[in-house]
C-alpha cells in the first residue's frame, strides 16, 4: 500500500473499503483479548474450521475483536448484524453455532445470558441488563473491529477527527474544543486536559513530546488494557490530535510489559499507520510530522508517576522528582512534554469529531463525558463498564454489575486502588464523579472498582495495599520510605492480633505526615486505604485489637481456619473433614462432639456459617461441610449406634439445669463430661425442646433427634436425671444448698406481627404457631 498523500486520499481509501465490503455478510466477533485467558483461541479456531467445513466461508466472517465488556462470562462472542451475544462458549459449541444460528437463524439456549430470577434466556445484547444503563462511546469500537486491521478502524470512521482538525481547525481550536468539553484526565488526578495542553503549547522549546501513560498500575484495573487491545488506533489518533494541537513531533506510549497482547496490537497499529502515512513525516501531505514509538515498562509501579515515567523513558532509574518544573515546562530531555492517560487520549477523537456540545450532553457540571470502570472482585458481572460520569455506585454495582455473588452482603467497593479508598454500603446512592467521590475519602481514580463482600476484612485490605505501596516505594524520600514501612508494620501487627488501641491514632498521625511530606503521589496517597477504612470500619479495627476477632475470617493468626472461626460452636472443622476424607467416620464424629453433641441434628439444620466463610468458596465451591457432618453422623448411628460408656462423675458439686432443649442438653453433656452430677428439668414430656417442636419433620426427622438425645442420655445416664417440671414452679424447687442451678428458659417467643386484620388490633383471636 502506498502512503496516502492527501486528506482526499484518506477519504477515498475509506470509501473504497466500504464499497468493497460485501453486503449481507454475517460477522462473528470473537473476543480475542482478555477472553484468551479462558480459551477464546480454541473457540476462534473451531469456528473457523466449522465455517469452512460447512461451506459458509463466503457468507460468514469470523473476526478476532477486542473486549465486549461482559468479561465475566468469557469467552464471549457476538453475531452481527443480528446483535446476538453468546457467552461461555467452548470449542465444541462451534458446530451448533454455525449449524443452528448462522445457517438456520435459530438461537442456542445454553449459550445465552440467563436472567437471574426468571432464568429466561436473553439472546440479544441490547436486552441484557448489563448493557442497558451503559453509554458505550469510547468503547464503541471495542469488540466490533479487528484491532490489528487499520482498515476496520477507518471503515468505522477512524481518523476522521484527524482529517477535521488538519483541514478545518487550527491547533488552538483543537485545544479550545478539548477545554470546552471539560475533559479531565482519566489517569487518576482528574486535571483538566485542555488546560494542560495549553501550558504545553505555550511552552518554548523544541522538540516537544507527547506521552501516553499506559502503565496502568492500579492492581485491579484493566480499562486501559482493554482500550489498547481492542481499539489501539483510537489512542494513536488521540495522540496525533494532541501533537497537532501542541506542536509536538515525537510521541511515546509507555506500556506495561505485563500486557503482551496490548504491546502486539500497538506495534501493529503503529506500523500500519506509518505504512499509510498517518504517522511519520508530512502526514497526509499537510506538512505535519509526528513519530510515535513504544516504550515498555519494566515492572515498577512508581513509573506511572509522570516524572518517574519520563526518567524511565530516558533510560534511567524511574524515580520521581519534585515539581515544578512541570513536564509542560521541562519534561523528557528537559523539553516540554505532555502526558495523558490512555483513556484520556481515546476521548479526544470523539470530542474533535462531535464537538464539545455533544460531548457534554452526558456527565455532571464539572466532569463531562463518560468514564470506563473495570468491575472486579465480588460482583456477578465482572467486566468493563462505560457509564456517564455521575452514575451512582448502586447502578454500577447492582444494576449493571448484577450484585454480589452467592447471596452475600455487599460491604464496600474499593476505588482508586493503592491511592484510593473504600466506598461503604451507606453511600450506594453516591454519584461517581471526581469531586463527590473525593469528598468521602476515596477517589474515582483510574476507574478500577474492586467490590468487597462480608468475607473481606477491611483491616487486611488496608494492610494489603500498604504492603503494595511499601514494596513499590522508590525509596527516594524518607517520609515515604520509612512511613510506608511503619504503617505496614502497625497494620500487620493489628491483623496478627497484637495491635494496641494507640495504634489507631498513630496510623492517623503517620498518614497525615506522609500526605504532607512525601515527594510524589505514591507517598502522598498511600495512607488513604488505611485512613478510609478507619473512617468507615473502625469497629473492625477495634475487634481485631480488643477481641482478636476477624469478622471476615481472613486474618490468619486469629483465625485458625475460616470455617472454625465462623462456626458458632467452634468445631474443629478442618480436622473432622480430614478424618472423613481418610474414611475415619467415627473419629470425625468424636471431633465434632468435642464441641457439639448434636452432629446428626446440625448436619441437617445448621445454617452452616462455616461454608459461607470457606476459602475454597472464593475459588469455586465451598466444601460441603454440613453435608459431610450429616453423612459421618448417619454412618455413626447406623454402624455404631448410640451405645457408649457413660462419663464418670468425680466432682462433688451438683448442678440443676432447667430446660432440656438443645442448649440445656449440651450444657448437661459437657458438665457431666467434666465430672459433675447434673439434673435436668423439663416442662415438656420429651426432651429436645425446639428441635422437636419448631423444626418441621421433613427437615429434621424425629428419629434423628431421638437417636441423638438417646446418645446423650446414655453417656450422661448415671449422673443425670430428668424431671418433669411444671410451668411456674418456684425456683427453690430445684435450687438446694449444694446445687448450682442453670436456667435455660424457653428462648424462642412468637414474633409479634403486624399482619392482623386492621380492625382487631389485638392478637387474641390468633394462635401463634409456637404456642400452638
Amino acid at each position: 500500500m502506498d502512503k496516502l498523500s492527501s486528506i482526499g486520499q484518506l477519504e477515498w481509501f475509506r470509501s473504497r473499503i466500504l464499497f468493497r465490503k460485501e453486503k449481507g455478510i454475517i460477522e462473528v466477533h470473537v473476543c480475542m483479548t482478555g477472553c484468551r485467558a479462558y480459551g477464546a483461541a480454541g473457540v476462534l479456531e473451531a469456528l473457523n474450521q466449522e465455517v469452512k467445513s460447512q461451506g459458509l466461508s463466503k457468507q460468514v466472517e469470523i473476526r478476532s475483536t477486542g473486549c465486549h465488556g461482559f468479561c465475566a462470562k468469557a469467552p464471549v462472542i457476538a453475531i452481527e448484524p443480528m446483535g446476538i451475544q453468546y457467552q461461555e462458549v467452548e470449542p465444541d459449541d462451534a458446530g451448533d453455532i454455525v449449524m443452528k444460528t448462522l445457517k438456520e437463524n435459530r438461537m442456542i439456549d445454553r449459550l445465552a445470558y440467563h436472567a437471574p430470577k426468571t432464568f429466561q434466556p436473553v439472546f440479544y445484547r441490547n436486552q441484557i441488563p448489563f448493557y442497558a444503563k451503559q453509554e458505550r462511546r469510547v468503547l464503541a469500537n471495542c469488540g466490533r473491529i479487528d484491532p490489528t486491521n487499520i482498515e476496520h478502524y477507518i471503515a468505522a470512521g477512524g481518523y476522521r477527527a484527524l482529517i477535521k482538525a488538519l483541514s478545518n481547525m487550527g491547533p488552538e481550536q483543537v485545544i479550545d474544543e478539548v477545554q470546552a468539553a471539560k475533559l479531565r484526565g482519566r489517569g487518576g488526578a482528574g486535571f483538566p486536559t485542555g488546560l494542560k495542553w495549553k501550558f504545553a503549547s505555550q511552552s518554548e522549546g523544541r522538540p516537544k513530546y507527547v506521552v501516553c501513560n499506559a502503565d496502568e498500575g492500579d492492581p485491579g484495573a484493566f480499562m486501559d488494557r482493554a482500550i489498547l487491545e481492542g481499539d489501539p488506533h483510537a489512542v494513536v489518533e488521540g495522540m496525533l490530535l494532541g501533537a497537532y494541537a501542541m506542536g509536538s513531533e515525537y510521541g511515546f506510549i509507555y506500556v506495561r510489559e505485563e500486557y503482551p497482547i496490548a504491546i502486539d496490537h500497538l506495534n501493529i497499529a503503529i506500523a500500519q499507520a506509518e505504512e499509510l502515512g498517518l504517522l511519520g513525516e508530512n502526514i497526509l501531505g499537510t506538512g505535519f510530522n509526528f513519530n510515535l514509538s513504544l516504550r515498555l515498562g519494566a515492572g515498577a509501579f512508581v513509573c506511572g508517576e509522570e516524572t518517574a515515567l519520563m526518567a524511565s523513558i530516558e533510560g534511567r532509574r524511574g524515580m520521581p522528582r519534585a515539581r515544578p518544573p512541570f513536564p509542560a515546562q521541562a519534561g523528557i530531555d528537559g523539553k516540554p512534554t505532555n502526558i495523558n492517560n490512555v483513556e484520556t487520549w481515546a476521548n479526544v477523537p470523539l470530542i474533535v469529531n462531535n464537538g464539545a456540545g455533544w460531548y457534554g450532553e452526558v456527565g455532571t457540571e464539572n466532569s463531562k463525558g463518560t468514564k470506563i470502570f473495570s468491575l472486579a472482585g465480588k460482583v456477578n458481572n465482572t467486566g468493563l463498564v462505560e457509564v456517564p460520569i455521575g452514575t451512582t455506585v448502586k447502578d454500577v454495582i447492582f444494576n449493571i454489575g448484577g450484585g454480589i455473588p452467592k447471596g452475600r452482603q455487599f460491604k464496600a467497593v474499593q476505588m482508586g486502588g493503592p491511592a484510593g479508598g473504600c466506598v461503604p454500603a451507606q453511600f450506594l446512592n453516591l454519584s461517581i464523579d471526581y469531586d463527590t467521590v473525593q469528598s468521602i475519602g476515596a477517589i474515582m481514580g483510574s476507574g478500577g472498582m474492586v467490590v468487597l463482600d462480608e468475607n473481606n476484612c477491611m483491616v487486611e485490605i488496608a494492610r494489603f495495599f500498604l504492603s503494595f505501596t511499601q514494596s513499590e516505594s522508590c525509596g527516594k524520600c524518607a517520609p515515604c520510605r520509612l512511613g510506608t514501612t511503619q504503617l505496614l508494620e502497625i497494620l500487620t501487627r493489628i491483623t496478627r492480633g497484637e495491635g494496641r488501641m494507640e495504634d489507631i491514632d498513630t496510623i492517623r498521625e503517620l498518614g497525615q505526615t506522609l500526605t504532607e511530606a512525601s515527594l510524589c503521589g505514591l507517598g502522598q496517597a498511600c495512607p488513604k486505604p488505611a485512613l478510609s477504612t478507619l473512617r468507615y470500619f473502625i469497629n473492625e479495627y477495634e475487634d481485631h485489637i480488643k477481641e482478636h476477632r476477624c469478622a471476615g475470617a481472613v486474618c490468619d493468626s486469629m483465625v485458625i481456619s475460616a470455617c472454625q472461626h465462623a462456626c458458632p460452636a467452634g468445631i474443629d472443622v478442618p480436622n473432622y473433614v480430614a478424618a472423613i476424607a481418610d474414611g475415619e467416620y467415627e473419629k470425625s464424629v468424636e471431633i465434632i462432639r468435642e464441641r457439639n453433641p448434636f452432629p446428626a441434628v446440625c448436619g441437617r439444620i445448621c445454617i452452616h456459617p462455616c461454608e459461607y466463610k470457606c476459602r475454597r468458596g472464593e475459588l469455586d465451591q465451598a466444601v460441603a461441610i454440613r453435608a459431610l457432618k450429616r453423612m459421618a453422623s448417619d454412618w455413626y448411628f447406623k454402624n455404631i449406634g448410640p451405645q457408649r460408656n457413660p462419663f464418670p462423675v468425680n466432682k462433688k458439686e451438683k448442678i440443676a439445669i432447667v430446660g432440656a432443649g438443645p442448649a440445656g442438653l449440651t450444657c448437661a453433656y459437657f458438665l457431666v463430661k467434666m465430672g459433675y452430677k447434673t439434673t435436668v428439668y423439663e416442662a415438656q414430656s420429651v426432651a429436645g425442646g425446639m428441635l422437636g417442636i419448631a423444626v418441621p419433620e421433613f427437615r429434621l426427622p424425629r428419629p434423628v433427634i431421638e437417636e441423638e438425645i438417646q446418645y446423650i442420655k446414655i453417656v450422661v445416664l448415671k449422673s443425670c436425671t430428668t424431671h418433669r417440671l411444671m410451668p411456674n414452679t418456684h425456683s427453690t424447687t430445684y435450687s438446694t444448698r449444694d446445687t448450682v442451678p442453670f436456667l435455660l428458659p424457653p428462648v424462642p417467643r412468637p414474633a409479634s406481627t403486624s399482619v392482623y386484620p386492621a380492625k382487631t388490633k389485638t392478637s387474641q383471636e390468633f394462635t401463634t404457631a409456637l404456642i400452638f
Partner: protein
Amino acid sequence: MHPPEIELNELDGIIERHKNGKWELIPLLQDVQATYGYIPPESITPIAEALNLYPSQVQGVVTFYSGFSLKPKGKYVCRVCRGTACHVKGSRSILRLMKRELELEEGETSPDYRFTLETVACLGACFLAPTMMINRDYFGKLSPTKLSSVLGEYRQKGNNKNG
C-alpha cells in the same frame, strides 16, 4: 544442575541494534532479558561500554526494575497475580498451592531450571480473578483443580524434549 548454557555472542547483535539510538539502555536490557531469560552479569560491562555509561549506572537500572533479573530463570516463568481483584478472590490460596505444587518459594527457580515462581501486581485480567500467567499465556478463574491441570500440561511439555 546448571542453568542452560547461553550463547553470549548473541549479545553483540543486541548491542549493535541499540547502541546508536537515544535512551536505548532499557530497551536493550529488555532484549537481553527476553533472549536469555535474565541479564547475565557478565553482559553488564560490554553494555555499559557500548552505551558510554558506567557499569554502575547499568547495574543501578537493572536492580531498580523488578522486570530485570540477574539470576537465570526457569523455562516456564509462572507469575501468580497478587493484585487487588485477585486478592479478594482468594489468590493467597492459589499462591500457597503453587508453592506446594512446585516446591518453590516466591522468586525461586527449580533446580532443573524448568519452573520459576513469581508474583505480579496485576495482569489486567481481573474479571477472571484469580489469574496467573505462564510465560506469555494467561490463565483465569483458577481453582485448585484447574491449577493442577494447567501445571500438568506444562510438566508434560517440559518432559517432551521439543516442547
